[in-house]
């Protein structure tokens, strides 16, 4: 490298000074200690809310690597997760039992929900997050308040990149002020660096005052979400034809909390088709998932989402075995449209 012929500040001095400056930027002992303590904390820590993502876990890993010279391990706060997975969670089991929502009880009983004990108090009302769960098909938050209940239009859940998860369903016990809210799933790649979620509630409703007694406030809590258990997504793009209507099983995802099926149709679902109807009530497409062997019992369908030519079904999680998904009727046309599939041992 060319050298300045007549420097007042020597090259060596300048270079040494630069190195010193950069080293000091990341090797503040106090900061390292702080990050080590955080990484080893047995319980997720509530951090001050921030508009943008802060990834202390990644930086903690980075700084620890710098400080110790050890190989980097890019997995934030596994200690906290191990602790969370094994911790007893009777309060969550109680909520699931009270509300009696299929799928959630078994999920809580399986110990997959991460216990949290985060609280924020605003305007005399405390909102607590008791637990959270996330996998490839949904995100669930178990909440408790001192007054009021969260409503879907006043609650937002965002990941560290600012992706807002869609609130889809909530169940609330107005006597115990406990319940849960279901959101859409996080994008899969968010889990690569580790997911950090922020819950914001801007108002709480009250069932006793349906005309809109709202507890105003701005409750906000942020935490590191435990990574999901393994899930598997299969995209068979398998078609079934009956009466000139083609239905396609585009994709299904098998996750610990549920099995989700995405179907599309060559003819959109129409509520007002001119074909004569036998029943007086509005027609509904009928979906059945049955296990081929064993009891042959139908798997409970937790939710159906029908939008034009697309259907999303959420069913209880499937055990290994052979199954058949059947659409019994589509626009009054009797099917059936069927797709056999197998859930293999050990996955997800």
């Amino acid at each position, binding site marked *: 490298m060319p050298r300045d012929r007549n420097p007042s500040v020597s090259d060596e*001095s300048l270079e040494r*000074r630069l*190195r010193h400056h*950069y080293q000091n930027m*990341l090797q503040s002992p106090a900061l390292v200690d702080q990050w080590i303590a955080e990484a080893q904390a047995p319980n997720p820590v509530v951090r001050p809310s921030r508009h943008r*993502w802060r*990834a202390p876990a990644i930086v903690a890993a*980075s700084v620890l690597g710098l400080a110790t010279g050890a190989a980097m391990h890019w997995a934030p706060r596994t200690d906290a997760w191990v602790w969370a997975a094994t911790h007893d969670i009777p309060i969550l089991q109680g909520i699931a039992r009270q509300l009696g929502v299929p799928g959630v009880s078994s999920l809580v009983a399986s110990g997959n929900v991460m216990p949290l004990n985060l609280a924020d108090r605003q305007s005399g009302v405390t909102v607590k997050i008791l637990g959270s769960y996330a996998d490839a098909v949904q995100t669930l938050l178990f909440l408790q308040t001192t007054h009021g209940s969260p409503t879907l239009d006043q609650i937002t859940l965002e990941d560290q*990149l600012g992706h807002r998860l869609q609130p889809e369903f909530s169940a609330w016990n107005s006597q115990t002020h406990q319940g849960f809210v279901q959101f859409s799933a996080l994008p899969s790649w968010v889990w*690569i660096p580790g997911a950090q979620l922020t819950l914001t509630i801007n108002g709480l409703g009250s069932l006793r005052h349906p005309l809109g007694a709202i507890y105003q406030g701005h409750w906000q809590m942020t935490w590191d979400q435990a990574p999901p258990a393994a899930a598997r997504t299969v995209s068979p793009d398998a078609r079934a034809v009956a009466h000139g209507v083609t239905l396609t099983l585009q994709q299904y995802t098998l996750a610990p909390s549920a099995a989700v099926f995405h179907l599309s149709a060559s003819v959109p679902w129409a509520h007002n088709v001119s074909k004569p109807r036998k029943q007086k009530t509005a027609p509904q497409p009928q979906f059945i998932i049955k296990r081929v062997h064993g009891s042959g019992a139908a798997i409970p369908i937790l939710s159906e989402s029908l939008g034009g030519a697309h259907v999303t079904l959420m069913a209880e999680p499937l055990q290994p075995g052979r199954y058949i998904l059947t659409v019994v009727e589509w626009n009054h046309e009797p099917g059936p449209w069927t797709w056999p599939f197998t859930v293999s041992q050990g996955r997800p």
Partner: protein
Amino acid sequence: MDRHQGKAVCEPLFVKLMRGIVPDALRLTTYWIGNSTAAEDIVQEAIAKAWIHHHRLPTIANPRAWFFTILRRECINYFRHRDRRLVAVDIDPSPPVSPPDAYDPYEAADLRIDIAALLRRLSPRDREMLAWRYGMDWSLEDIAESTGIPLSTVKSRIYRALKILRGRMNDAARSEP
């Protein structure tokens, strides 16, 4: 390679690449822009953008250079839009400086000079090269390989950045009482 095979191959490749590269990326970005909080955001944006194209990984000859190209673009964007941000992200305060091991009259003089402030006045590209060379302590050849910038350009940029910095340090030292 069909869609599922591609996913099965590319995702582990991407995760492996990120595990190896993100610590360096965070360090470099922090050194470069001088703010660890903003660096986290920038690296995360870079990961997100890299993920969008991660299916191309098997065909990329130098994945490390590929990711650092994305990251460098994010850093340049940060400098471009920094003044327009609603929330000002300022430079971390300069850490306390400990005395040098051996007496150096020049170094003794420039201890009084805030090097962080001088670095802030350099162009982003000059700061980048100094961050690579003296923050990451990488060789010129390694910098050229990781950034995809020709070796001669790396050399000349570092030389220019040092020259500017040295000149400003001299000016600052002369203005000291």
